[in-house]
């Protein structure tokens, strides 16, 4: 691992308490790597969620120094560099302790029930996603030839890929709306479903038009700013608003 180690003080929320760990991390080590190393080294590390370790599963979201991010994609190098302290805010030098180490506060995602430590039940992020919303999307061929005939596949062979949203809940946690609201993750899914399945568009617009649909959104755009997958939920909410404006019957 090249580069000098970066001195860090991890402060991990554990209920009313905070567990503190002082470590010197190689620049490329991620917050998740650090927690894993502390845990396997016999340390009593507050509980945390993790699975894929490469930003695909969406389990390891946390508030890192106040801003939602995936722990598996946040490196010691990132933490030692200027970072925003609020979603979309200006990058500022990291806060350091008396010994010069960078202070890294790890808090559970907001709006979710904490299991223990910084591990949460992520149900809030999932609850508003419409039942049956497809997770596959067309992968654009971009000039490539169609996929070849496939003796093992009776269905039409089109190029497919997963939706970009990894359902990590970062957007839900960052959203400042405090009234009943199905939230940015659900609305992004609603809009994607509307776009992909025209036959479900009326049902999707009805969800968007409900009182907990797009209306409570105050266009803070924190959701789009913290999204690790560039889904930009705020954009999907605006697209739903546009669609509702074009179909007055759906917003009645």
């Amino acid at each position: 691992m090249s580069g000098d180690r970066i001195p860090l003080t991890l402060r991990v929320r554990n209920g009313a308490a905070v567990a503190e760990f002082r470590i010197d991390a190689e620049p490329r080590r991620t917050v998740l790597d650090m927690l894993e190393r502390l845990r396997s080294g016999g340390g009593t590390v507050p509980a945390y969620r993790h699975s894929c370790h490469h930003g695909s599963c969406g389990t390891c979201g946390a508030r890192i120094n106040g801003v939602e991010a995936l722990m598996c994609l946040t490196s010691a190098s990132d933490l030692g560099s200027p970072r925003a302290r609020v979603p979309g805010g200006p990058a500022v030098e990291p806060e350091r302790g008396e010994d010069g180490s960078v202070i890294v506060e790890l808090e559970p995602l907001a709006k979710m029930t904490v299991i223990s430590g910084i591990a949460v039940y992520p149900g809030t992020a999932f609850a508003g996603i419409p039942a049956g919303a497809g997770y596959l999307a067309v992968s654009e061929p971009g000039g490539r030839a169609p996929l070849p005939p496939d003796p093992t596949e009776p269905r039409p062979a089109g190029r497919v890929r997963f939706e970009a949203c990894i359902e990590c809940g970062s957007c839900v946690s960052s959203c400042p709306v405090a009234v009943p609201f199905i939230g940015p993750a659900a609305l992004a899914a609603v809009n994607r479903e509307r776009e992909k399945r025209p036959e479900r568009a009326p049902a999707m617009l009805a969800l968007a038009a409900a009182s907990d649909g797009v209306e409570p959104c105050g266009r803070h755009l924190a959701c789009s700013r913290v999204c690790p997958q560039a889904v930009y939920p705020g954009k999907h909410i605006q697209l739903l608003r546009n669609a509702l404006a074009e179909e007055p019957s759906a917003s009645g």
Partner: protein
Amino acid sequence: MPAASGVLYTRFMFDPPITTRNRARVCVIGGGGTGAALAYDLSLRGFSVTLLEKGELTSGTTGRHHGQLHSGARYAVGDRAIASECMEETLILRRIAPEAIEYNGGVFVAVDDDDADYAPVFVSACLEAGIPAREVPVSEARSWEPVINPAARRTVWVPDGAFDAFRMPMSFFAAARRLGAGIRSFTEAVAVDVVAGRAAAVIARPVSTGRDERIECDYVVSATGAWAGSVGRMAGFDAPITPAPGTMVAVRGRLSDMVLSRLSPPGDGDIIVPQRGLSIIGTTQRVVDDPDCVLPDDDDVEFLLKRADELAPGFSSRGVHAVWAAARPLAGRSSGDGRSLSRDFMVLDHAAPGAVPGSAGMATLIGGKATVLRAMAEKAADHVCEALGVGEPCRTREFVLPSWRDYYAEETR
């Protein structure tokens, strides 16, 4: 509507007819893909299931998989039976978990003379294993995926795919819970209580309370993969398991829809798997004693990127998104890199002849690989049925699984 719409929007209700409940209680230790499929299989057969996982579900090896849904082509030359089983399972998974799979097929690419010489052996082995591999002109393969090395010598189409290593197993968990299984994440199995020579309960410690609970059961299955050694020791059983971590590197950019593999005997850095907007090169292999905290080996990164460039030139010029490692659960013991160990799986009954006396009522599932998670669960559930005299057949081939989202949406605590 795009032409592919038929693939995208098939919708199902998960509503299997409930089997008559039997009275047997089974405790599954380990919340990875195998435990997920086993909890589901046992629940379908009418058992009362409690699954214990010390951390988040799929947080061991399962979630870190690169996601290749094996047609079995990779194993066809070395182990025909495993190859056939992969083909069979890949077809089943494509049917029962369609939303967790990006199925676009795959191409094996012969890069050098040795690879090219290997091609005929490879194709005939695939065909003998029931995998409809077919050699195609390099120009044709490159028309599907222009990222394939233009200097490639030969190219072979195979029915490989990619799956979401988290959402596939979570769909099994959602199904298991729908059928009444108790899925206890962040709850560690800390002891097995043996009464009169038989496992009678598992002591479970939830991280949220720290207070031990006694899970009474009639049978215990350890589905703990690379952790089978330490969990087995809890019950006095010496599980022959070799944790074999491998490093993977994800770069930014979806270089292909198809899975690209090196047309050569299995080795390090021989697979590129697309995943959303990323491309993953895997893997390396080494052997460790402790599967906890397998951090990526930094020397591996440069090697993997170089190997990736041979398959898909320009791969290494993409920005590195993440580097990580996962511990394969190889069955057997190895002092080398573990490549000599089979990827087969087996169910070891703790009370088998030669095993520790006084350890009836428990089995350990070892080996295997992600693509065959359902088959591993079937074999383990068959074993439980036989041990407890239950005659229910496996039905996990029959039903399309519910969405992984159901698991969390229903988790209302």
